[in-house]
């Protein structure tokens, strides 16, 4: 790390004291810059403007559909059975799947875009439209997505508004196409899905940049502080406020109020999901409970006195669950009003009194500052009163409940993961708690609660898991490096060449939820595996938390073991969900900073560059929601492949390549102006793996790119073969596809590989100099 950039302002527990001062760090950016940049062909592309690029991608990576339902129920002509038939509107099964994926992607885009707009308007109200978008001196190419897509760099918060308006406009157009009697072709639905994904990335970038600059979150510093994580870190003696969701504003309101009142040490503020991440970016004394899989267990454990929900990934039964142990629920955004009375204009003390006297079930408070005051006051008052509340059944009761079990087995059948809940319950009746404890460990059971809902004897299985697992909770003391925001330009300058040439074997982005049995530990192990192998590992959201919940043999978390640099062996926590924009942002910056490609209006050229040259791969192992669909579509359109977990097969659509079809891999060599044979690199755009072993091997393979130097390719193939041997016990069957000339053959595996090459009748082939899917220039 020689090129250390000027560090952004320290963020710490006291920074809000100065948060109204505008701080200038680094050089003043030349205001006219964006005007001088020549504009590419597609600034603010409409739905059809990038269709030709989409068709190139989609012809190579054909949509693979797995219908989740044979029928369509979207209009009152139906339901129509589409199995081998077209519906009453004429639609066929493939188009219908594409349509459902488009709806999901629009919903995902709406979640991020809606959040970004909401947050932006709040921040503009606080800071003014002209508040500068200044990410500090070490980041010059701020907002690479907006630069490319919108065609200019945002200088102020108002400029971000222009970007989000564009997202809103386009998303409405896209959603419109899902109406009955609109789009009818699956390839066009997919093109629209990809556009929705792109809009999602613009929306996420708007959201994160707005909060970074206006709330002075870390601005790309590689050594943000370690923040406490885990149930064991929460001091249950204090009043506890739990924030669930994704919007930093209410959490910031709480912290601001505590600071104003000098109550920093009197209460615990903790978070679940991205709200946790973003609150700790705002203030590192807040604590992270963990990812979404902890939510029902933690709420039911009764530790939290006040539960503040904002938006996204909040259990819709949170009110009902919190009421069980008399915790107070405050809803804070229009997204989640859960039927609560709107108390935004009410006097805070009156609200507190109504809440505590059970006059209202909870409160909807749309003003973050008022949320802060009410939450703190309510928590302080409640904390004492709730002390003697029995939150969970005691161990005797657990046994009594277990004895109710009739072994009908429906708990196992409705479990999304077919976990052996019945066995665990029955074992308890015999005094064996280990099976239930196993379900708790590493969130093998992510406590969705379907077993409990199904149980004909009303055994509260989630409470049983929670109670039995309780004894290990005190040991759950981990940490996470606070989300840093975007990657710095200097880092890109340093790693651009090694990535494009293949010397750094790849950038692996572990993102999204970890809602998969043992999903957290599996993500952590993937991180460890690739870190040990010199990959750059970036992470966000629940994956970033899950990685922090794992300790290696020496008892260190990976955040303690590895640096936060965007460099080989760097473990980079970018931040929350919206920080996923910095994943695509980083690869775009490689094109911009390293390859000096102009970004503005140049989507296709940039995406083509990334697809063919930047060995990056996303992993969303436990992703379950529509946001993940949109994020994946976005990274895919930027040319980055992604691997998802088995449950993601229920997203209905993957993008799979066909390595057996040589013609699919032809590339245009733009340097030599001719069509050349290529290789399946990357082989798939969106791939669902059945288990971690398969996923790990696939990630290594998907980091291969046509522009790898022989040295780089050797290294990538070595990792690919190593991992294949580890998980499959063999050299991969398809290794010959990725050997262009004998210089590519990894030295360690030379003999084995050469034998395979011979068996397969391998012949060396010419390496394209500038492989591309773009048309030749006329």
């Amino acid at each position, binding site marked *: 790390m020689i090129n250390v950039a000027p560090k952004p302002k320290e963020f710490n527990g006291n920074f809000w004291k100065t948060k109204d001062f505008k701080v200038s760090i680094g050089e003043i950016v030349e205001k006219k810059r964006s005007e001088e940049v020549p504009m590419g062909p597609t600034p603010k592309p409409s739905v059809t403007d990038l269709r030709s690029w989409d068709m190139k991608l989609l012809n190579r990576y054909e949509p693979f559909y*797995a219908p989740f339902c044979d029928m369509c129920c979207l209009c009152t002509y139906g339901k129509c*059975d589409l*199995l081998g038939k077209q519906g009453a509107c004429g639609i066929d099964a493939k188009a219908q799947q594409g349509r459902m994926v488009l709806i999901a992607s629009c919903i995902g885009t709406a979640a991020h875009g809606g959040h970004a707009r909401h947050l932006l308007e709040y921040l503009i109200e606080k800071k003014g439209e002209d508040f500068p978008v200044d990410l500090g001196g070490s980041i010059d190419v701020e907002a690479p997505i907006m630069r490319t897509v919108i065609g200019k760099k945002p200088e102020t918060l108002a400029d971000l508004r222009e970007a989000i308006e564009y997202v809103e406009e386009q998303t409405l157009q896209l959603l419109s196409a899902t109406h009955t009697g609109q789009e009818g072709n699956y390839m066009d639905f997919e093109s629209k899905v990809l556009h929705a994904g792109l809009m999602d990335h613009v929306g996420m970038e708007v959201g994160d940049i707005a909060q970074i600059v206006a709330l002075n979150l870390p601005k790309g510093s590689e050594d943000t502080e370690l923040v406490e994580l885990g149930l064991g870190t929460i001091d249950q003696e204090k009043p506890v406020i739990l924030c669930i969701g994704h919007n930093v504003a209410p959490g910031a309101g709480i912290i601001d109020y505590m600071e104003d009142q000098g109550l920093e040490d009197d209460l615990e503020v903790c978070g679940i999901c991205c709200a946790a991440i973003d609150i700790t970016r705002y203030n590192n004394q807040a604590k992270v409970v963990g990812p979404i899989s902890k939510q029902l267990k933690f709420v039911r454990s009764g530790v939290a006195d006040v539960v503040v929900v904002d938006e996204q990934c909040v259990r819709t039964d949170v009110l009902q669950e919190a009421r069980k142990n008399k915790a107070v629920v405050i809803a804070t955004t229009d997204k989640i009003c859960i039927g609560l009375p709107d108390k935004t204009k009410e006097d805070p003390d009156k609200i507190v009194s109504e809440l505590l006297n059970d006059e209202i079930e909870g409160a909807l408070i749309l003003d973050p500052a008022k949320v802060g005051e009410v939450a703190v006051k309510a928590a302080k008052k409640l904390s004492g009163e709730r002390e003697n509340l029995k939150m969970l059944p005691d161990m005797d009761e657990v046994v009594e409940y277990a004895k109710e079990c009739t072994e009908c087995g429906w708990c196992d059948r*409705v479990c999304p993961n077919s976990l052996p809940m019945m066995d665990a319950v029955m074992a308890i009746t015999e005094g064996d708690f280990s099976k239930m404890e196993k379900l708790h460990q590493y969130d093998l059971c992510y406590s969705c609660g379907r077993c409990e809902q199904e149980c004909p004897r009303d055994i509260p299985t989630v409470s049983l898991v929670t109670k039995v697992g309780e004894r290990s909770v005190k040991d759950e003391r981990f940490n996470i490096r606070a989300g840093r925001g975007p990657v710095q330009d200097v880092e890109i300058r340093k790693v651009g060449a090694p990535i494009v040439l293949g010397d750094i074997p790849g950038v692996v982005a572990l993102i999204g939820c970890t809602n998969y049995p043992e999903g957290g530990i599996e993500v952590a192990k993937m991180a460890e595996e690739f870190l040990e192998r010199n990959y750059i590992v970036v992470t966000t959201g629940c994956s970033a938390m899950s990685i922090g919940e794992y300790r290696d043999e020496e008892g260190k978390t990976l955040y303690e073991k590895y640096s936060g640099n965007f460099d080989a062996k760097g473990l980079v926590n970018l931040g929350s969900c919206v920080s996923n924009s910095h994943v695509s942002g980083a690869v775009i910056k490689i094109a911009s900073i390293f390859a000096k490609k102009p970004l503005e209006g140049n989507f296709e050229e940039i995406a083509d560059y990334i697809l063919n040259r930047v060995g990056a791969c996303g992993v969303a192992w436990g992703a379950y929601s529509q946001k993940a669909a949109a994020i994946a579509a976005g990274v895919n359109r930027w040319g980055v492949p992604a691997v998802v977990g088995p449950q993601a097969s229920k997203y209905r659509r993957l993008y799979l390549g066909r390595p057996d079809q040589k013609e699919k891999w032809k590339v245009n060599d733009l340097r030599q102006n001719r069509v050349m044979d290529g290789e399946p690199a990357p082989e798939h755009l969106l791939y*669902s793996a059945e288990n971690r072993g*398969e996923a790990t091997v696939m990630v290594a393979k998907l980091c291969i790119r046509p522009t790898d130097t022989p040295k780089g390719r050797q290294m990538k193939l070595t990792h690919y073969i190593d991992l294949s041997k580890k*998980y499959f016990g063999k050299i991969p069957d398809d290794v010959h596809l990725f050997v262009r000339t004998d210089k590519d053959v990894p030295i360690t595996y030379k003999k084995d590989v050469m034998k395979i090459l011979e068996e397969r009748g391998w012949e060396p082939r010419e390496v394209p100099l500038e492989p591309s899917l773009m048309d030749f220039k006329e």
Partner: protein
Amino acid sequence: MSKERVIPWQPTVIAGPKQALLVTPETAKMMIKKSKRPLMVVGPLVKEEPLTDYAADIAAKWGLPMVSTGDAYKAFNEKGVKTKSYGLVEITNLLQDPNWKGVQGEGQHDLVIFMGCIYYMASQGLSTLKHFAPHLKTLTICKFFHSNADASFPNMDDDEWFRYLEKMKQD
């Protein structure tokens, strides 16, 4: 439990009017005998004994080429059983292409027997084939009823399943 045997193991896998045919080992074997180019696909849930053996024996008995998914290859390889390794979604994708030449390069398969893939993921793959691969039949010999298959064993406990599998090894 009679009705419970022939609804999807995960009950919400129910996808529409079409449901798999419930088969006994006898009918299943009939399907294999009638098939010209059958294929057996084994997933990571058969990595443990006695399932690996059952799968290998059944394949051997009926001369079925084997594809292993997930990381199942290793378990079979270690027993000296030859399988070809694919991702479950990869092999499904190939199977839905009428022009694919099959694992032995002799032509697309006309029957695929699944065993030991993650239930819901197999359901999804079977849905793909149900919708888009009219050229082949699917048969599942797991202990779970797979409604998206053309033919499936019922939901069973291990004992009964093992008896079914035992029968699959015989004429």
